[in-house]
């Protein structure tokens, strides 16, 4: 009787767990399914499989989509994708560079302001998006800097430097400092030691931080919403605007493509991280890698 009860309980817990995964994934799968439904009036009723919504968003010939509406929209969509990519790539480069330099300084030097610098880099991560967004808006307007791609890049860097810093710091904390000492003892200068020993060892952390920065930058909505100019909309802000204006089947197609792209990047990143973790089990990871 008791074992039966335990068995039932275990089953219930498994059922609950599976329900949780349904909760996480059903909404996403729903959009993907809708994006292929040819019913233009009611997405809920399945008509037929079609690729017309995808054709419509790229301005290709199609029957179902509202062609007049989307002739204009296609250009805007492509412009938004371009802005998003420009912003994400620039931001990733800059924040990875600055974040890594800072992590190296804090991990490998002893100086009085160490605690202060940890605090400094901790602040942007915990600052609510909306606060940072409007603070930046007030700042850019006050100093007379035009809102556009440049302001978005600056805005993203303010918090992404911190993310890179955390990931690279975690990697540095797990490294054996004796390797660097040995290199110095063998006569290598600081620069050679850095280039030949430290950099290859922290490379996985740097790459991980860069991927995280790229994903977050591509996805940021709130801060970008406040500091993007009229003609520099990023993809999330563009989609937010579309949804606010009304729900159309074309949005499903855009959403599906975006999900596929971000999931692909995230899956590669997580896979690489897991592989790395199993490859270097010896590193005593006191601090979690930050990308969770």
């Amino acid at each position, binding site marked *: 009787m008791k074992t039966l009860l335990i068995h039932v309980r275990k089953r219930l817990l498994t059922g*609950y*767990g599976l329900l*949780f*995964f349904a*909760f*996480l994934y059903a*909404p996403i799968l729903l959009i993907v399914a809708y994006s292929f439904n040819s019913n233009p009036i*009611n997405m*809920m009723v399945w008509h037929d499989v079609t690729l017309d919504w995808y054709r419509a968003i790229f301005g290709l010939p199609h029957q179902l989509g509202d062609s007049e509406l989307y002739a204009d929209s296609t250009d805007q969509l492509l412009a938004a994708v371009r802005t998003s990519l420009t912003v994400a790539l620039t931001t990733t480069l800059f924040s990875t*560079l*600055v974040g890594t330099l*800072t992590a*190296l300084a804090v*991990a*490998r030097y*002893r*100086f009085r302001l160490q605690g202060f610098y*940890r*605090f*400094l880099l*901790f*602040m*942007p*991560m*915990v*600052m*609510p*998006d*909306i*606060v*940072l967004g*409007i*603070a930046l808006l007030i*700042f850019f307007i006050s100093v007379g800097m035009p809102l556009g791609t440049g302001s978005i890049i600056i805005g993203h860097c*303010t918090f992404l*430097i911190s993310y890179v810093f*955390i990931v690279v710091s*975690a990697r540095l904390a797990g490294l054996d*400092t004796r390797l660097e000492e040995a290199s110095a003892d063998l006569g290598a200068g*600081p620069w050679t030691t850095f280039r030949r020993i430290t950099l290859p060892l922290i490379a996985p952390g740097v790459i991980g931080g860069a991927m995280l920065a790229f994903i977050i930058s591509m*996805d940021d*909505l*709130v801060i970008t919403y*406040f500091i993007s100019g009229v003609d520099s909309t990023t993809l999330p802000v563009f*989609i*937010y605007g579309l*949804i*606010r204006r009304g*729900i159309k089947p074309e*949005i499903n197609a855009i*959403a599906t493509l*975006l*999900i596929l792209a*971000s*999931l692909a990047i*995230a899956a590669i990143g*997580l896979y690489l991280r897991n592989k790395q973790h199993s490859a270097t089990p010896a590193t005593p990871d006191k*601090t979690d890698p*930050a990308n*969770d």
Partner: protein
Amino acid sequence: MSTTQLSSTLETGAAPKARSRRPRWSLIALLGPVTAFLGVFFFMPLAIMAVFSLLEPGLYGGVVWNFYADNFGRILGWANGPIEEFDPVYLSILMRSLRIALITAALCLLVCYPVAFWVSRLPPRRRNFCLFLITLPFFASLIVRLYAWVLILRPSGALNGLLAWLGISDAPVGLIYTEAAVLIGLVYIMAPFMFLPLYASIEKLDRGLIEASYDLGAGRITTFRRVTLPLTLPGIIGGSILVFIPTLGNFIVPSLLGGAQVLMIGNLIEQQFLQARNWPFGAALAMLVMSVVLGLLTLYVRATLRRQATDVPGKEAQA
């Protein structure tokens, strides 16, 4: 970001090894960029915002450079000038935001706790796969995931379709633009923030202690209340804070799923900047959100440090 980092970022203050060999100028070169960048583009904007919150709003947007404390008074509903009366509308929005953020944290906890338990008991391979599956949607576009809930909850949406198909209800349930819809959306996007710290503390849980509790005659409920719950408390608190902070200032979820019915403080701030053009009042509201968040974090970090200070000897004795 997980709780362990949240606290470890601050507390691992002492440098591991002194490097007398390294020259001072290279330290300055390494720290120069971040100091300049965050100084100009992070701290200066926050300082300007703080100043703005104490200035008088101009008649047609912009500010008048006069000291003006009424922005904060207005949040509390104090009448300003002869034409206004006491009106706690902003106070009620603030209270609603706090309530929604609290309920969201509680719901996330209820949803995630059993799942975290379940995942921690799975065999390693399947456990890693489950963790991967839980982390993955977190990287999928936020706006797209919320859009999915707009599709599900609107009157002609998937939920009503499902209910009609099951024969439960033919009359459409108007769930969108209610507080329930906002809560569903918030729980959906915040669940991973709760899950990961929870999982971290549940996984560390020593099962021997639970068995010992059973052996000593405690029932399931007593064991949970006296052993499991206190031991997983760090994860519960850490997760709740990680959910509470972004929820409090969130304005995307209420604007998509709450409409004009369920305004939160984030929506109010957005309105002050993009519609009402009352920047000082918006800045005052943002200062309020920031103070609540920073206050909470300070309490949390302090409590964590104190716990670790008292905990460490005990842990070593255990191992």
